[in-house]
Every structure is written in C-alpha cells, then in structure tokens.
C-alpha cells in the first residue's frame, strides 16, 4: 500500500504569549491553548493533496508525547488522516529520540514518504526530519515549498537563503515543510464526528525498542532581554534628523 507518514506535534498555540515561569524551570503551559504545530498541519495538508491526486492510498499520523497528544491526533484524523499512532510517553523527547521512534514506525509501515514540519514552534530545533532521513538512509528535502511526485521520484522546491532550490529525490524520502507549501484546510464538524471512529493506536516507546534519553539537559529558562521603548517622532524631517545624527543615513 502506498502510504504517507505524517508527524503531528502538540505545541503551545502560536498566538499564545509565552511567559517564562518565575523560578526559571520552564515556560507556563497550564491553561494555555495547545494546537497542532503549524508546520505539521501543512505536512498533513500536503499528504492529503497527494492522496487526493491518487498518488497515495493511506495517511498515518504519528504523535509522540503524553496522553493529551491524542487531541491533536483527533484533529489530524478530522482533517483527513486515515489512522493515527500515538507513541505515549511522559519522558522529554529530543529530536534524536523522536527520529529513532519514527524510524521504528517507518520500518513497520514502509511508507513512500514521511512528511514532517521543518521545525516545532516550541523547541525551534529544526532537526527531527533530517535526523530521521539519516537514520533511515534515505534522501531529505527540507523546507519544501513545492512537491511534485512522479513515479518513484519527487521533485521538491526548497526555500533556501539564496532563493529557491530544486532537488530530485528517489522515494522513499523525508520531506519537511515550509510555510508556503500550502494552506491547510479547515476541519468541518461532521469530520470531527467521523474522526472519532477512525483507528488510533497507542504504543509505548519500549514496545518499539527505544528508550528516550535526554542528552541536552535544560538547566534553566530565562525571559529574553527586552528592548527599551524608544521615542516617537512627529514627522519625516524629525526622523531624518535623528538618523542623520547617528550617521545612519
């Protein structure tokens, strides 16, 4: 079966104003809105479009983390994923561990593609997809803004510092999404009802033969240094004078 694996990370919603706990042990997540990582929504949307073109048959959504991740997997099922796998753990999951766990699922599911977000907006690591591709020994096409599948190849346009780069990769491969790849669809109410009946499997990391280790320990969290508020100028002339005074124009 032609299958696509999509990863779905549960993260603090991008609209939430993040605050560091006063004791520096983390950021405040109690009572805060949680969502699917925006890049992962884009990953799932791309998988759905590939399937809708008849180029894939099944989409499996994967999330790694505590029990609450099932909310985001249900969202993914409502968006259109066919089934979900929840790797349930309360342990801290570094990108290295996430990649090792996903590799085990890949060995089991044998997908033609694994589509991940380019970065999780909580840890901002931008690592997991590349690590997965290395462990799998397969191509990676990161920061994708366009994906075209033809036969057993994919042509991927990537957003790089110089502009746009195009790579051709043999399948199976790992793709990570950039923001402009697509615009994810909205979930409709009937789909949410239907999603409740779709299969959601739960596995423990130990059942996959992986024990997550934390190799980069969080020592402390600090708020960023704040820029002080400057002055308002009343017109362009005043702005020009101020900048000229600093030798900037």
């Amino acid at each position, binding site marked *: 079966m032609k299958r696509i694996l999509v990863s779905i990370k549960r993260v603090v919603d991008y609209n939430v*104003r993040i605050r560091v706990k006063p004791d520096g042990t983390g950021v405040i997540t109690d009572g805060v809105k949680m969502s699917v990582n925006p890049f992962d929504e884009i990953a799932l949307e791309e998988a759905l479009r590939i399937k809708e073109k008849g180029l894939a048959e099944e989409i499996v959504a994967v999330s790694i983390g505590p029990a609450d991740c099932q909310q985001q997997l249900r969202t993914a099922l409502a968006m259109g994923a066919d089934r979900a796998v929840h790797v349930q753990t309360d342990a801290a999951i570094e990108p290295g561990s996430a990649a090792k766990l996903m590799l085990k699922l890949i060995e089991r599911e044998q997908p033609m593609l694994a589509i991940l977000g380019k970065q999780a907006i909580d*840890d901002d690591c931008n690592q997991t997809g590349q690590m997965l*591709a290395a462990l799998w020994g397969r191509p990676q096409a990161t920061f994708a803004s366009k994906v075209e599948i033809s036969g057993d190849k994919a042509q991927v346009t990537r957003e790089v510092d110089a502009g746009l780069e195009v790579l051709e990769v043999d399948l199976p491969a790992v793709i990570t999404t950039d923001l402009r790849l697509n615009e994810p669809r909205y979930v409709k109410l009937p789909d949410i009802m239907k999603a409740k009946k779709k299969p959601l499997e739960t596995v423990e990391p130990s059942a996959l033969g992986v024990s997550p280790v934390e190799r*980069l320990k*969080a020592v402390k969290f600090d708020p960023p240094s704040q820029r002080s508020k*400057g002055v308002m100028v009343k*017109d362009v002339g005043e702005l020009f004078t101020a900048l000229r005074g600093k030798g900037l124009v």
Partner: protein
Amino acid sequence: MSKILIVAEHQGGKLNAATAKCVHCASQISGAEIHIAVFASDPAAVAADAARLAGVSKVITVANPQHANPMAACIAPQLAELAQGYSHVFGPSTTFGKDLMPRVAALLDAPQASDIMAVESATRFRRPIYAGNAIITVEVTPGTQLVATVRTASFDAAQTSTSAAAIEGASPSATLPQHTRFVSVSAARSDRPDLQTAKKVVSGGRALASADNFKILYQLADRMGAAVGASRAAVDAGYAPNDMQVGQTGKIIAPELYMAFGISGAIQHLTGIKDARTIVAINKDPEAPIFEVADYGLVGDLFHVVPELEKLIASNG
C-alpha cells in the same frame, strides 16, 4: 580539551561570512582547537580564506565535483567521518547549516544544540526557543560529542590574521549517495547588499499591497545602500521573494539600522530583528506592536513617508 570542527559555507568560490561567525563562537570555548572543513569541487580559494581566520589552526579540504552544489545527504556522511575525535561539530544557522547538521548529528548519534546564541562553557550553551520568547540554557554531559548550529546574528565575525593555518586535503571513504540530485537554484538577482550581512535593512510588510509598490522600498534602499527585507505576510502574498523574509522562519538579522514599513510587529517577525542596533518603525496604526521595540517610531502612511525620506536623503546627500 575541546577540539572543534566547523563546516565552511561558501558560494562562488568565496567563504560566506557565517563561517567566520562560527569561528568566533567556537573561540569562546576556552582553549579550543579549531579546524575548518571545506567541501567543494575546487576548495583552494575558500580554504585559503578559511586559513586566515583568527583562531583556526587547520583547514581540511574535501575536493569532489559532487560538492559543487552542496547537498546535506552527500556532505553528511563525509563530515561525520571527519568529525571522529572532535568534541564539537559546528555549522552556521543558515539554511545550509540547518539542513546539514542534524543529518551529521544523527550519523554520529550525537545530540544537537540549534541556534546557539551564547557560550557559557564547553558543555553549556544558551539558545532561543518559542520564537525567542524564552532563552534556554542547555548542558551536555562532559565527554558527549555535541553538534551545534550557531545563530550568526549573535556573534561578530572572527578577525582575519596575518598568518595562515595549514591546509590539508582529506579523502573520506564514505560513498556519496545517488538518491538525491541537484536540479537548480534560483540565481541571486541584485547587486544590493546581502540581507544577512547588510549594515542597513529596509523592510516592507503587507501594507505595501503589491509587488509593484515594493519598488519604492528598492529605490529608498538603493539610495541608502541598504538591503531589502519583508514580512511573511508580504512574501506569502507574492509581493516579495521568499529569500527576503525576516523572522522566526526567515532570516535572523542584526543590522545597524532596521526600518520597518507597514509591518505590525508580530512576535515571529520581531524575533528576526531584535539584535538590530537601531529599529525604526513606520506604521499608520499608533497601537501597532512594532512601536514597542522601535527606537524611533513614526505614525504615518508609508506611501508618503518613503518618498519624502528618500528626497531628504537625496537632497542632503
């Protein structure tokens, strides 16, 4: 003792400024021995530049026509091989480094610290998370090999020195995979300064309302010798190309002057500019969040402000 291998980024036979910033970051680890690896079809010129960076004691070159267009899948196995015996492997937090370094880390089974912004010791680093809304200090157990990307906006470039380090050729045995093929890259199209290294940046947001209107910013930028940036909204709408995006998922920059025209100041944008020395904001909404971080704010219509400012600069040339 720390032994650090840095992968060089280069274009058109020239070392990219990001590499010198990685060297400066590495040199903050006390007593570090710093080497640079250059992967290229013809590494000579880049290696010569790299050898003159202060603090670098050796440059290792890997010449291979396949490295003419750097691809992570090809460089990673060779870099991982060269990295044996090094305590740290660094690359820049550019799209080149972000693509490559995690692949190397996985091959080495090493953890990676992304976007390091400060060095506290050989095992302790600070990096931004949550779009820069929090700074985390992370630590590896001593003796663990560490891969890292360096947030280039946080470090000055290493100086160039008068003496040059030794340059050595290497031929890693790792075979290059054939499963990934380079097709094309869009050519850099302007002679305007590079956004990531420019001293001045003029940037436009959704308010510009069309690609055509962006021309007024290009004109102002040319008058000032500035690079041009854009918000995600402006790029998404097609007013500006993707390589101009500044922010969490675009470029992180630290110019002396950043001027934001018609940009609201969303947190994902601000994280890309907060190391700018002077921020100027022009917005017609006095409540726009960009004013919270601006050194100089002007409430006004950018379509009046931009031409007027350009005229003032021209006539006071």
